[in-house]
């Protein structure tokens, strides 16, 4: 059974000066799946993330989002990053971008920003609605931290966490924005084997809760165990797509990897 498409990328192209980082890329993400993006360094994977999340405006092509429960599709090209987040797409960053001088809990609470409303007057007068909202933010954030295994460190500064814990905190912060599509940029980078195992469990759990996941990762074991489908990129193009076992035996993929690296 094919589930519905939630993100459709067609003919996506991104030029930086003379360099073409993405070249007429086509693929789609379906509801509830884990789609892995793999490819050698510099293949354009993070650039793709930046295009989808509104940090770059693509030079050509379309990024279409089909929100659950919303009839019309949304064109993401050129939307501001915060609007993309409001539409239900959240991400983590390859080179961790936490608010390092805020506590772990506060980091996640900031993620609740786009789903809450209190403003100047609410902040100053703290009416009942604001207090209830604030209470809910704290509780929901704490629940998310328990989920990623950081409940013991809620009051620590994010910058003082270990590398692996910071990566998990980034996931919790992204989840706080209530995304239906989660973009993870190398979540296992810098983790030790035990941490990676826990991460695999965590990502699986997030998928089971109904979030679709688009994943960039270099750890092939992780990619092969977790993903439902894989898209392989090289020089900004898609060179292969399919289930893990199909991709594993694809000649072009082997050439891109082995030809480059060994």
């Amino acid at each position: 059974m094919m589930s519905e498409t939630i993100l459709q990328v067609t003919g996506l192209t991104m030029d930086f000066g003379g360099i073409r980082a993405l070249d007429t890329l086509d693929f789609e993400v379906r509801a509830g799946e884990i789609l892995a993006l793999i490819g050698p360094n510099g293949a354009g994977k993070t650039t793709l993330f930046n295009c989808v999340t509104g940090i770059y405006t693509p030079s050509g092509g379309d990024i279409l989002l089909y929100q659950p429960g919303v009839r019309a599709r949304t064109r993401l090209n050129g939307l501001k990053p915060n609007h993309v987040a409001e539409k239900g797409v959240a991400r983590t960053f390859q080179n961790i971008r936490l608010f390092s001088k805020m506590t772990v809990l506060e980091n996640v609470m900031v993620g609740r920003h786009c789903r809450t409303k209190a403003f100047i007057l609410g902040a100053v007068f703290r009416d009942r609605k604001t207090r209830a909202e604030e209470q809910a933010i704290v509780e929901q954030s704490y629940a998310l931290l328990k989920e990623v295994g950081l409940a013991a460190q809620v009051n620590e500064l994010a910058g003082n966490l270990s590398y692996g814990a910071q990566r998990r905190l980034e996931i919790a912060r992204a989840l706080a924005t209530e995304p239906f599509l989660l973009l993870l940029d190398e979540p296992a980078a810098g983790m030790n084997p035990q941490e990676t195992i826990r991460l695999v469990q965590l990502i699986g759990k997030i998928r089971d809760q109904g979030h679709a996941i688009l994943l960039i990762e270099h750890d092939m074991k992780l990619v092969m165990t977790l993903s439902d489908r894989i898209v392989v990129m090289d020089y900004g193009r898609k060179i292969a797509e399919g289930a893990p076992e199909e991709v594993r035996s694809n000649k072009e993929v082997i050439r891109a990897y082995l030809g480059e690296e060994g």
Partner: protein
Amino acid sequence: MDYFVELLFSGLTRGAIYALIALGYTMVYGIIGLINFAHGEIYMIGAFTSFVVATVLSIYGFPLLAIVVLAGVCAAIWSSAYGYTIEKLAYKPLRHAPRLSPLISAIGMSIFLQNYVLLAQTSDFLPFPELIPDFAFMEPYAHIVGSSDLVILVTTAVLMVALTILIKFTRIGKAMRATAQDRTMAMLVGINVDRIISVTFIIGSGLAAVGGLLVASHIGQINFYIGFLAGIKAFTAAVLGGIGSIPGAVIGSLILGLTESFATGYISSDYEDVFAFSLLVLILIFKPSGILGKAETKKV
């Protein structure tokens, strides 16, 4: 027509002075990405040092040529020493701090130096001795372009050529360009980055000091506050040309000098400074990369 040519030359002269100061801003920015807010004060200290030296020498009866040369050399040496010291004290410890920290430090340094000169010397305007005589061969053109304008233009041109040669063709120039492009890489290939940064401050400060001497003798008076406005205007020129770019700083300075000269000459002189500030605000808002600068791409 004469009036137009007169304004043209006064604009070029202004531009030349701005260029001498703007180069310091742009070189430092190119290398460490810092708006060296205290640079205007280096220029002011250059003017004061040349004032002190020139006046002392003239009291002791030295000939004019010796006074000019010694005042210039002393101003350049001492300003460079100030520039070097400031970098070591206020910026070097902040190399890895958040971006705004060195800027705040620079603002503090600027205020400190202003008040240091105020306390060490005086808050009054001081009459600056006339160091550039009226040349006889300039007599027929004196109503259009003064001798000091000529000296300023020639001096600036010579210094620009010297600087270009230094940066393009010498070892230290190559190292400076490498450091500006990628500090970590430069360090990896064995360039002593700290030394290059010091050299940049020294050269920039020296040029500003010459600017200080030339302006002071052109205008005829100085006080401790002249660095603030001159600094802002030179910074405007550097941004206009594209901060980080050396030819950009010169072009930006000439444009700023000419527009100021024509605007005050043909329109009104009341809002002379408002004009420079507005220009600064407008460029930063609409084209922060300036004429010759590269636009920055954000890296995520």
